[in-house]
């Protein structure tokens, strides 16, 4: 045994080599290697692939590279668990610089188990940058191994190995520690190791996530950031991959070999100073991370409460930022990549687990992030911060997405409330609002792949079908309250009073995640985009702008979770113009290439439209796939309507032109619904037009030509639909 408590020698002795590949180490040139790494865990093939000049010009990097490789690997018939499906990981050209905050992101893509179309996740941790500095702009993982394997990329030595690994843990908080213990020479070397792993829950559900590790030198813990959405962890475990590990020991400012280091430093230093000066007056990210949002969302009636029925709760104080601030450790440089002074990756240390297989263990729990507080808190009626943290910990280590778990559990609780579920059907679990112990036990059953846990782990869309088929539930009611679109569970904002955000959610290519657009304040609070055309313009610009982070390996947060002191007095404060200019500056400083604001949007638009066509190729991406469940648009139930009756009655009078007096609540719900659903359809028309798509949501040939992505196989997908 070592001082880490792992029998590393014993684990190593159990390894059986599968294959090995040696490659020539070359320095990165201005953010690029121009080669990618292909690993097939099924037949053991490992190879490097050159990146063509055309691919680099059209797909830029990061998500663009991941999607291009995935497109070439699959067919329209490929299912998530076919061996040809891939898990592709890439940072981008700007990714991995240590100067500009938020520059360490990896983008993961795969065909999703829950949606059947490409999913993409933007995740922190050290893996993507270390992969690039080891020599590869992207990693393709294909095939399915017969027995559990680990893939090890040694960027110091220029070697890639696949080996069978029967002894290592599956759950991530143990496995990530084993990987640093196994591959680091000494304590200082641990920071040079990063692993990607999933967990036992990812094996037994469709909502599995990936954990990307980053070694925290002060806590002496391999911490984890999640590529959460759409079940990529499930694909990973289906391939029998326990971990992919990279080692790179020579990180410094020259690793990414920027064209103009001085300019990169100048721009980074400017933002560092802005964050250090202003963050405590703005978002308090350095104090409590994204969890600062909870009370803001509660105040604006946007905090999903009891399956998005309501937007606030008098109990929300129990899980507000101050509740978690009292639990997390303060004063540490909590960046998930070097040089991120925003430092939002908070953690509670020495947290003693009260349930499950690790009961009694004292662990470090990353976060909680806002999405987890809302999803594993208010949305399931839980307002105990320790229950939220315990759910957060187990979701992470089991490799379960906290957002999908929260939204799925909220749906289950509402089904219980409506008599669709009972303890016979849940195996004795009383899954009622606010029952934290039941939510935890449900999570453990997902982890074990046991009983009702197997049903819950299917996600909301499949549960709807299951409950209708097996329990005779009304499919229309299930459709109304089950908060998923395209098969992906919604993230944690109430969108009822913001038409633009309804579009931002359900027109998002991969499914309803808010990373394409978050327009609620702009739309609902500040009324800056009143017309359909205004909303469509916002639903063009922001998804394109935000796509760019995924091409470059960047985090969205330092864009607008910190703002220059004079931002409010600029022409378009929602865009944070000075920070957009920072991005143009660092892009040029790294790559040496000029880029203007229009060029930035075009880089994104190419990949965005390619992804759209990819969705169509895989059988979704049509107008009908962009329709939200009504719960995300307006009040479904009498209880819900009457909880905000003044608001809705006023809207009936002033917007719909209907006098609510004398109407019963079901009639009022119906009138409001007809109005809101019609407005959503009009929004679809306006957005598709602005994006250069047909009324059915299909990119036109002209749009593809204009963007230079009119490849024959791309045109072939859309042509029959035009």
């Amino acid at each position: 045994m070592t001082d880490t408590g792992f029998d590393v020698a014993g684990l190593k002795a159990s390894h059986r080599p599968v294959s090995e590949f040696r490659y020539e180490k070359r320095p990165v040139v201005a953010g690029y290697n121009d080669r990618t790494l292909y690993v097939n865990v099924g037949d053991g093939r490992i190879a490097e692939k050159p990146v063509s000049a055309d691919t680099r010009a059209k797909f830029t990097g990061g998500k663009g590279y991941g999607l291009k490789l995935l497109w070439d690997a699959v067919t329209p018939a490929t299912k998530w668990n076919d061996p040809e499906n891939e898990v592709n990981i890439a940072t981008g050209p700007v990714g991995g610089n240590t100067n500009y905050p938020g520059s360490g992101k990896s983008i993961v893509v795969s065909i999703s188990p829950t949606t059947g179309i490409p999913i993409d996740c933007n995740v922190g941790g050290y893996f993507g940058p270390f992969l690039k500095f080891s020599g590869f702009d992207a990693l393709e993982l294909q095939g399915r191994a017969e027995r559990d394997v680990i893939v090890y990329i040694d960027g110091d030595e220029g070697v890639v190995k696949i080996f069978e690994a029967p002894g290592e843990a599956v759950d991530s908080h143990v496995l990530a520690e084993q990987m640093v213990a196994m591959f680091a020479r000494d304590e200082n070397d641990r920071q040079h190791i990063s692993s990607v792993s999933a967990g036992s829950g990812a094996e037994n559900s469709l909502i599995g996530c990936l954990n990307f590790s980053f070694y925290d030198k002060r806590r002496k813990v391999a911490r984890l950031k999640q590529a959460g959405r759409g079940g990529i962890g499930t694909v990973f475990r289906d391939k029998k991959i326990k971990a992919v590990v990279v080692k790179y020991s020579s990180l410094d400012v020259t690793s990414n070999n920027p064209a103009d280091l001085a300019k990169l430093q100048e721009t980074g230093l400017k933002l560092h100073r802005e964050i250090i000066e202003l963050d405590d007056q703005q978002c308090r990210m350095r104090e409590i991370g994204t969890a600062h949002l909870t009370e803001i969302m509660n105040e604006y009636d946007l905090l999903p409460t009891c399956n998005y029925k309501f937007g606030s709760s008098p109990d929300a104080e129990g899980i507000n930022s101050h509740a978690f601030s009292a639990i997390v450790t303060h004063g540490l440089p909590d960046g998930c990549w070097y040089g991120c002074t925003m430092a939002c990756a908070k953690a509670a240390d020495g947290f003693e687990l009260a349930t499950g297989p690790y009961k009694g263990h004292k662990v470090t729990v990353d976060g909680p992030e806002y999405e987890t507080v809302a999803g594993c808190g208010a949305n399931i009626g839980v307002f105990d911060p320790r229950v939220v943290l315990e759910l957060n910990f187990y979701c992470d280590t089991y490799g379960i997405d906290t957002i999908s778990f929260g939204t799925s559990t909220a749906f289950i609780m509402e089904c219980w409330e409506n008599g669709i579920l009972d303890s016979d059907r849940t195996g004795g679990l009383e899954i009622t609002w606010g029952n934290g112990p039941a939510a935890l036990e449900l999570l453990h059953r997902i982890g074990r792949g046991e009983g009702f846990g197997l049903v819950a782990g299917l996600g909301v869309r499949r549960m709807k079908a299951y409950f209708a088929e097996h329990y005779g539930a009304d499919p229309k009611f299930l459709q109304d309250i089950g908060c998923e679109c395209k098969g992906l569970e919604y993230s944690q904002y109430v969108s009822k009073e913001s038409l633009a955000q309804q579009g931002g959610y359900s027109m998002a290519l991969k499914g309803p995640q808010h990373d394409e657009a978050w327009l609620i304040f702009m739309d609902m609070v500040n009324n800056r985009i009143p017309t359909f055309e205004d909303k469509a313009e916002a639903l063009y610009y922001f998804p394109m702008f935000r796509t760019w982070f995924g091409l470059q390996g960047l985090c969205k947060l330092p864009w607008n979770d910190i703002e220059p002191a004079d931002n409010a007095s600029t022409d378009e404060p929602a865009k944070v113009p000075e920070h957009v200019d920072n991005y143009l500056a660092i892009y040029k400083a790294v790559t040496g290439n000029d880029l203007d604001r229009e060029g930035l949007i075009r880089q994104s638009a190419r990949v965005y439209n390619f992804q759209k066509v990819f969705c169509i190729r895989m059988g979704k991406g049509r107008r009908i796939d962009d329709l939200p469940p009504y719960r995300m648009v307006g009040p479904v139930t009498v209880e819900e309507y009457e909880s905000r009756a003044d608001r809705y009655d006023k809207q009936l009078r002033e917007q719909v032109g209907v006098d609510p007096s004398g109407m019963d609540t079901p009639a009022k719900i119906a009138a409001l619904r007809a109005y809101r659903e019609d407005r959503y359809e009009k929004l679809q028309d306006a957005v598709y037009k602005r994006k250069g798509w047909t009324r059915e949501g299909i990119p036109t040939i002209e749009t593809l030509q204009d963007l230079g992505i009119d490849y024959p196989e791309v045109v072939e997908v859309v042509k029959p639909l035009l």
Partner: protein
Amino acid sequence: MPKRLSCDNSKCIACGACMTACSTLFFKVDDPKRSCIRIEQNGPEIDMSVCNQTCRLCVAECPVKALTVSPQGVVMLDRKLCVGCLACVAVCPTGAMRHYPGLANPFKCIACGACARKCPTGAIGIVVEE
């Protein structure tokens, strides 16, 4: 503790000998921008700026623990560990953690005393506080 430079700007004549000594020792060039101690004349006022070794905000901010406090109480940078993020430069309240554009690592005063030895007026000294 800590060991640090003491500066008495009433004695300083802004001759720049200290900056020459420092930058020559550290960087082999005579360049005030590469000196850990900075002397600026603002009208009749002379500002002397150098790390006081006491606030240690930079030590707390460093993600790789490249900044540590020596047994003498001096904040030291280990360039082998430094990844050049410059968070320490941004967090320094007195601007005494230095950055020169294009250089991989920041730099700072380690109270070596080279500048004090060259100071013609005794404006700079080394003190060890108890």
